[in-house]
């Protein structure tokens, strides 16, 4: 699993504070910690920085590059900010995060990625929003995103498609469709395009203590359809454990076996069945209930585990 570490994100109060103080040490140590815990790339999301982009983007790139050697993922909607960041990259091939299929974004951002030799994350989102159905998201990739890359002769091996994870709390019907979109997108082009998702979006607006389990179960479902790249928290050791179990087909404990079962069933286009679970084990019951909300079979409620 190629994890793009998500912890430098402006929605975090600590990040906001550190940026305000231009606390370079904070960002360096966050990047180092993420890489030590397995991140293959570090995402830098400091927002659009409409007023101070020309100072902030070079500043963050220089500081984080001074601490780690991995690629940086420039995560902003501000095209000027993107370019300011790209100009200062000296180490690994960066990732530009992101373009969508909206015409004005698709016009400018792929050109920028090409000019600076960056990989590019492209969202399956058009001007009319994010479609629910898996095939409509695949269609955006096939009919809009990929043709634009062909048009500008952008190396297809550098394109990363993000079919967009939405929250189970409020956009529940999207959850199973995303799984199918990830499955199908791998056949959208030869060679198969890279696919990445923002995993923890699935638990946005969910109470904090409930988020890790939802993320983990969704991860197992997505690994079942071949997901091998995501923006996620590399410091989540339990999540890392689940990745390892599935990648190594490790079935040495009942939970390891169960997470592998979830991935296998999904790979075979099957849903998990109650007989896959030991219902005497409360952990397994919680995982079962979580699969049911992610399949959109049972309506999500904050108290879904207590039901």
């Amino acid at each position, binding site marked *: 699993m190629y994890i793009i570490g998500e912890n430098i994100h402006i929605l975090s109060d600590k990040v906001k504070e550190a940026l305000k103080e231009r606390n370079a040490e904070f960002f360096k140590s966050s990047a180092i910690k993420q890489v030590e815990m397995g991140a293959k790339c570090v995402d830098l999301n400091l927002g659009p920085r409409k007023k101070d982009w020309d100072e902030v983007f070079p500043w963050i790139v220089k500081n984080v590059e001074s601490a780690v050697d991995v690629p940086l993922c420039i995560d902003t909607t501000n095209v000027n900010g993107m370019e300011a960041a790209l100009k200062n990259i000296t180490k690994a091939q960066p990732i530009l995060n992101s373009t969508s299929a909206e015409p004005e974004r698709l016009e400018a951002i792929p050109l920028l990625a090409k000019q600076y030799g960056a990989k590019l994350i492209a969202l399956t989102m058009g001007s009319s929003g994010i479609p629910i159905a898996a095939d409509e998201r695949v269609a955006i990739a096939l009919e809009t995103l990929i043709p634009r890359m062909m048009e500008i002769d952008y190396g297809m091996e550098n394109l990363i498609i993000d079919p967009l994870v939405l929250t189970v*709390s*409020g956009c*529940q019907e999207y959850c199973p469709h995303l799984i199918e979109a990830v499955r199908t997108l791998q056949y959208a082009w030869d060679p198969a395009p890279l696919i990445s998702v923002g995993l923890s979006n699935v638990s946005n607006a969910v109470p904090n203590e409930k988020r890790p389990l939802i993320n983990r179960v969704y991860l197992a479902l997505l690994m079942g359809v071949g997901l091998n790249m995501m923006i996620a928290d590399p410091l989540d050791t339990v999540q890392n454990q689940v990745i390892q179990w599935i990648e190594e087909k490790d079935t040495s404990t009942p939970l390891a076996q169960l997470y592998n079962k979830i991935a296998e069933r999904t790979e075979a286009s099957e849903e998990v069945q109650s007989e896959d679970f030991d219902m005497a084990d409360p952990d397994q019951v919680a995982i079962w209930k979580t699969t049911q909300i992610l399949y959109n*079979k*049972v*309506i*999500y*409620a*904050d*108290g*879904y585990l*207590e*039901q």
Partner: protein
Amino acid sequence: MPIEIPKDKWPGSIKTVTIGATAAEGGTRAKTITIGGQNTMPFMHFENPISNTPVIALEIKSRKPEDWSALLAEVWGDAMDDPARWAKMAEDSGADLIVLALTLEDEPADAVAATKAVLEASGLPLIVWGPGQSDIDNELLVAVAEATKGERLVLGLCEDSNYRTIVATAMANDHLVIARTPMDVNLAKQLNILITDMGLPAERILMDPTTGALGYGIEYGYSVMERLRLAALQGDGMTQLPMIVTPGFETWKTKEAKVNEGVPAEWGDWLSRSIHWETLTAVSLLESGADIVVLRHPESVSRIKDAISELMMV
């Protein structure tokens, strides 16, 4: 060629809920009302027989409302000054249930007096709403619940910010509750979980998923109700509660129904337009799974009654 109509097999069904208690059951109602029990989408008789008919409640208030449409004031007349007379008139116009809405001006003693007067005047099962301000709702509804122990009234409204007191008094005094959430399936289910967690059986909860009138968001309300009902039939226990909605309240605040000043002549006759607005809103909501529709105009009651009997014809 014979055409086979596809049928869904539903693993779940709606809980059966009985409102009101007769003398034999510890109350004073002339009859009780039972709703719920369906294991098919609304009026799909070919799939499964529909056990209970949707019912109509008429809303009255403990004091004459000053902000209701002049059309409602005209049709109810002086009865609006006296909840007992108003309730009797509502019963005579064909309602299956009465909703008594208390007001912010009521003291607990007034609320109890109005409730008792209504119970005296009409033998129909009764729903009592607080005025919609948490502390006052709690104060009034507790007094009413205690004074009417055993009647199996429905107390409302429980919301996620205020439900504990109402649920506790319903449990202690053998009443039911309404759980209202703002047009959101996740929140609707969550509130049902919270209320049943307190120990009130699901058979004593109605859910009000909130709706909008025709032209004012009814499609959102419709979709939420449809989704809740589909989940219930698929076996999601915490969505299997009968639904009560308020097309009367929603309709009579729209400008099309409430007033007739400065509206284009093409809009036609005011009364006729308003009744259409209320009945079309109510019928649409019945089609999305409403078990109780709360109305305000007696003419709408008879039209909805007709609509329900046609929809219930097998």
